């Protein structure tokens, strides 16, 4: 097991290396750079901007720039300097990362807290009234674009009812480390997290429902029934555990998806997280930050896959990593 984990982590190195080359080449070919915005400024001449570009090395061919960038990461752990933010990219990301991690964690908890009971109920009482109600919810959620749903929630619960703040991640005056700070943070996160969670549940609910229905008529459940196991125990002991295995193997990917994919939610709720930072970095041509974010997301995806496999070996005794 430990050997496998180490081997899997080592395999990630060439994977990440390949991604970095590809990504850098693509970014280089997108028109514009961090200084493009300056051309709008009449006080700065084009010659001056070109001079600055030369000084920053932006005019060098991309393999050279890539070499500088990758050696910085490998040798000094330096992901480059963000010209837009006038600070190292890693610092800019670090500030946002904890916001996103907290939001992702809350969203994940809410997603499973909603999806597991609903999926179990829908599967247990399939084609009954309660299952149909859950079915209506999942179809609505499936048809609902994230942006629309987020805007509706923002409008109703943020602007009209004013139950939740409509922007930011914490009140400006809150002192870090205090309980008030924590409360304020939760208050800011709850609406975006519920919005994301309500939409993220559909796949889990439908899949879990299907698995439970499938296992209901499986041979080993008939065996258990023939032993005199009461109906309720058939579910808790035989059906649910078998049905939950595929869920467990997905959890790694779902967490990563939430970390990287909160772009819409973070943008609409003006939540200063990594998703929004990524979008801003692209529009401002701050490739240093964007590249560092992509590397981070890539590493997280690989770790998520590993995490899924580890979780799977815990819940399914038939699978053992050797």
């Amino acid at each position, binding site marked *: 097991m430990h050997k496998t984990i180490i081997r899997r982590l080592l395999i990630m190195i060439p994977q990440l290396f390949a991604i970095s080359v590809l990504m850098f080449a693509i970014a280089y070919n997108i028109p514009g750079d961090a200084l493009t915005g300056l051309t709008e400024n009449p006080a700065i001449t084009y010659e001056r901007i070109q001079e600055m570009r030369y000084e920053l090395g932006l005019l060098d061919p991309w393999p050279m720039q890539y070499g500088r960038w990758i050696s910085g990461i490998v040798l000094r752990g330096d992901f480059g300097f963000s010209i837009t933010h006038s600070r190292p990219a890693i610092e800019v990301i670090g500030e946002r990362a904890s916001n996103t991690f907290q939001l992702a964690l809350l969203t994940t908890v809410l997603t499973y807290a909603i999806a597991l009971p609903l999926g179990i109920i829908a599967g247990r009482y399939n*084609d009954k009234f309660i299952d149909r109600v859950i079915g209506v919810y999942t179809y609505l959620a499936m048809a609902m674009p994230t942006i629309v749903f987020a805007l509706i929630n923002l409008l109703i619960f943020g602007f009209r009812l004013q139950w939740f703040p409509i922007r930011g991640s914490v009140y400006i005056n809150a002192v870090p480390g205090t309980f008030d700070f924590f409360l304020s943070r939760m208050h800011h996160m709850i609406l975006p997290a519920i919005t994301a969670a309500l939409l993220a549940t559909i796949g889990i609910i439908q899949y879990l429902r299907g698995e439970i229905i499938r296992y*209901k*008529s*499986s*041979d*080993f459940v*008939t*065996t*258990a*029934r*023939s*032993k*005199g*196991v*009461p*109906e309720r125990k058939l579910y808790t*002991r*035989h059906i649910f*555990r*078998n049905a939950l295995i595929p869920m467990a193997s997905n959890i790694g990917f779902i967490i990563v998806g939430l970390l990287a994919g909160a772009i819409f939610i973070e943008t609409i709720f003006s939540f200063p997280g990594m998703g929004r930072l990524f979008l801003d970095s692209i529009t401002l041509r701050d490739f240093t930050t964007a590249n560092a974010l992509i590397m981070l997301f890539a590493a997280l995806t690989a770790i998520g896959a590993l995490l899924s496999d580890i979780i799977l070996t815990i819940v*399914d*005794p*038939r699978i053992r990593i050797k």
Partner: protein
Amino acid sequence: MQETLLKIKNLRTSFRIGGDYFAAVDGVDLDIKKNEVFALVGESGCGKSALALSLTRLHNPNFTRIAGEVEFDGKNLLALPEAQLNVIRGRHIGMIFQDPLTALNPLIKVGHQIEETLTYHTNLVKTERKERAINLLAEVGMTNPALTYSNLPHELSGGMRQRAMIAIALACKPDLVIADEPTTALDVTIQAQILDLLRDLQREMQSSVILITHDLGVVAEMADRVAVMYAGQIVELAPVRDLFKNPLHPYTRSLLASIPSTDEEINRLHVIQGVVPELRNLPRTGCRFSHRIPWMADDIHEETPTYHEVSPGHFVLCTCYKKFDFAADNNS
């Protein structure tokens, strides 16, 4: 005459296909005696398993209807509330299924699956249950029962899994064991071992066995009485010796003729024409086997077939047995 253990009266099990229900078991009356091995034979699709699962209502009620009566210990199992039925399932009636890989929960240790039966039917505490489970594993012939106890089903071979399945079914020494094709998924040498084991345990525990099979060799070796089933009906019922000595119904005779023999040299294997009709297209009137012996005249069958007792305990459905003749088939 031996005492009756289980009495099946006019059992009718129907499955929903599309919007309608079609009877897979169509009016079966049977008495299972105490301490007997009762075999139920027939081709695939003639309703053997449907009958077996009906007895303790193991079919999914969402698309199955069961009518008639199954009388056991003075109670009608088909009308019993679920909670009371669960007292009988496993405790008084044990089941053994065809495929021991899918019939065991893949995530639960074999030992714990045996213990589960004990949990619901005995007052044994955990350590006693474990001890009993290990003893059972030894009884069904596991060479290292303590190890098998902690194995998961996939770690065992097919034969060992079926032994474990038998241990589960017999954990509470039930009065009746229903074995639904217990050896079909196993290879021949293992088949013999499992059947021997089943017979030994049956004798030791003095329980009755309903053995469902399509293998007439198994029937000859194991059974006391045999019922031959075709298209949801019992077409012939007889003590095992009578059936092999004097098979009467054309279907029984066709089944026996289909067994390849090593004694005489034959060029062609006898096959029964056609197949068991699909549930939806099953003729519900007249002799259901008539269309598979089309060379016989129509008037040999009864319009509404009835049972004829040809010798004590030997019943045949329809009068066609009297005139049936293989030789008249020009195609064979």
